């Protein structure tokens, strides 16, 4: 599946059916589950998705599932639905990163907007993750000396200064620099800085 995927967890079959129909009519792929446990068993899905989660369910409740997912580092965005408007529950859910919190019955505009927002967010998130993974892959091809050289380059040091820092000839620095630029696929230092920022490699804050 490549389309926009929406998971739905609600113990009430009618609600499940109605919401599934609505989301499908809005063009989403919908996968519905009757309990948190069933949802946990779902097959892996590539691509952007979001979860519409009923707050109160027998056994494992919606908020318990959210807490568990946060613990596991899941980035799947959650839109909460609840039978009652409980401020305490909604605050807790929002604090744990929920996209939105609706009281049933929920209007399609609000729900679909939230779903769209969640999916977009997730899409961005996924794209970001993909980008980081690409940078990381290139970084992995650098030798230790080349990585050191890259670090000094984004800090704005000249070749001569880098040669002094590393105790090597300036000529050698030039070769490292050329290989870093080539391996990372950039043509300017500015480009390199931008590329390395998301993976946590930043200019040194102090004079080495």
């Amino acid at each position: 599946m490549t389309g926009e995927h929406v998971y739905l967890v609600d113990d009430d079959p009618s609600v499940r059916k109605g919401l599934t129909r609505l989301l499908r009519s809005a063009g989403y792929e919908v996968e519905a589950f009757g309990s948190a446990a069933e949802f946990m068993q779902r097959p892996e899905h590539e691509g952007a998705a979001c979860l519409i989660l009923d707050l109160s369910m027998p056994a494992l409740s919606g908020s318990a599932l959210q807490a568990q997912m946060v613990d596991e580092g899941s980035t799947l965005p959650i839109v909460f639905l609840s039978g009652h408007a409980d401020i305490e529950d909604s605050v807790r859910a929002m604090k744990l990163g929920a996209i939105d919190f609706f009281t049933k019955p929920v209007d399609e505009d609000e729900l679909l907007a939230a779903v769209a927002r969640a999916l977009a967010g997730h899409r961005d998130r996924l794209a970001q993750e993909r980008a980081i993974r690409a940078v990381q892959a290139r970084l992995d091809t650098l030798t230790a000396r080349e990585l050191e050289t890259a670090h000094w380059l984004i800090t704005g040091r000249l070749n001569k200064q880098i040669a002094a820092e590393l105790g090597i000839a300036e000529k050698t620095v030039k070769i490292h620099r050329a290989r870093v630029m080539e391996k990372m696929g950039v043509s300017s230092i500015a480009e390199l800085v931008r590329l390395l920022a998301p993976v946590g490699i930043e200019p040194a804050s102090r004079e080495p």
Partner: protein
Amino acid sequence: MSERSAEFETLVMSISESVCPTTVADVWAQADSVLGSIGQFLRTDFVAIALLPETGTDFQWMFLGSGITPGLADGLGSDAFRGWMGSQLQHAGMVRLSDMSVAGLGIEMNPDPFTGADVRSLYVIPLSAGGEVFGSLLTGTCGRVLDLPEAELRRGQCLGQIVGYRWIRTDRIERLSDAIDAAEAGLWSVNLNTMTYWSTPRAKAMHGFRPDEVVSFDLLLSHVHAEDRRGLVEANSYAALESGNKLRVEYRVQQSDGTFRWMLARGSSDGGPDEPVRITGIVADITTKKMAEEELLNARAVTDAVFDSVPGLIYLYSQEGELVRWNKRHESVSGYTDEELRGFQITRWFNADDTAKWNEDWPRVFESGKHSTELGLTKKDGTRVPYLFTGVRVDINDLPHMVGIGIDVTEKKRTESALAELRTELAHATRVTALGELASALAHELSQPLAAILSNAQAARRLLAADPPDLAEVRDALEDIVRDDKRAGEIVHGMRAMMARGEAPSETLDLNRIVGSVASLMKGEAVAASVPLEFDLAESLPPVYAGRTELQQVLLNLMMNAIDAQRTTPISERILKTQTYVSEDHVVVSVRDAGTGFPGDQMEKMFEPFFTTKDAGLGMGLAISRRIVENYRGRIWARENPERGVTVFVALPGKEL
């Protein structure tokens, strides 16, 4: 002859004057001289008078005059002679034996006193008064024959009668006086000519006079209570009008100590054919009787007053159902008159509605000895009043009767219905409170179908807008909308029914369905409290007959309690298990929890009003539940589970199909 007649008249006068005995003792004292004077007149040698008692022919007294020898006295007093004399007087009248040597008595006496005394002539002359013989005069001669002519015999008879009658009367009056005296009464007589008052010593004492005091009628009146004088005078006046008029009068006489005593005087007037000359009678002290009568009257008055003042009916009925005695209250209560109530048939109090009940009640009074019942009493005007009747069997003259009281229970009924009203209100309040607690759960429950409906409707709109529109899917969505809407309606309806006040009519119910309807309402609450619901329902149950809402309320209450009781139970151990099954002819539903339970001694109390283990509980839930269940002839009880918590059972009679 004229000389003899004059002699006779002189003797009569003399005897009449002298023979006025007042006591029997006087009679004996006079006997000798009186009889002697008679013998002298008749020129006989011996005279005796024998007197008969009031009844019988056996002579009782024999008064013997001079000239009677001891031997003759024995003979005349002997049984044989007296028997002979009696039969002679009865059959032959006068006996004339002028010459005893020619003709004997014809009776055997040994020794013969007449021969011994040489009696030659013997006359036995009957004495009578008012045609009745009361005695005889015996006279005769010894040693000589005396032929008394008829006229002489008549004169002797006359003299004997004067003397004998006086004697007999004296005796009788004396004995009468004794009898009256013994009866603690007195004799009295008023002389209407002189208005003097004669009476026996006792009668005088009774009126406050000395025995020897001379009392006039006026003096007598002065001792009589002022209020009673007129009555006494009138009674005497009436008696004085005509001979034979009777007198009966009660009056009070003042005693020397100032107190009054009641007297009863009875008498009648006698005297001439037209004008009575005196009134004679007896007088008795009736104070004791009068007081007893008064006491009795007072006691009766008190009893009647008590009976009549009782704010209810007091009655005595025969086993045939006839009113025998009743208090006055019957009249004011029923509108029937005293006359109409006499012999009133008990069944007339009841109308057709009560007939069946009455037919059961009535025999029970006589079988078990006592019984009480509530029936409507029909008044004369046809209106009915609720009454509580009691009946106790009492045998009068060996005939079974029923005695008892009837109490107007209108007020009691009113109180009862007011109480029932109050209970309904309380039940309503409890229900509303319970529903208040449930409100969020209900809102949650209602939000589900509403959410589904909205989603389906909006999906359908989208589907129709698509090109081409997916009509099959739209139809499915619409069907789902209809179904979910119905579900929402049921929830709303159930909620309204729960909130509704008043008693829903009883109907035939499937207990499983009741459990289902309540469970669906409870679901949200159970989820919120993390109590898993478990059901173990019998596949098919006989129906029960009860009010749907009330039964739902009972179950809701039990399930809410079960959830509340498990707040401190570890989540993994929480349970709310509802079971239905058949036990003999009852359908049972049990609700089991794993809660805190009740301390042992409180198991009994948990169904009592205002018993609660909850901080905010009213303590009415289980009490009302019990009332409801018992109202449908069911039973509610609780048992501690072996491991944890309590199971509450509700058993209702199963209805035969």
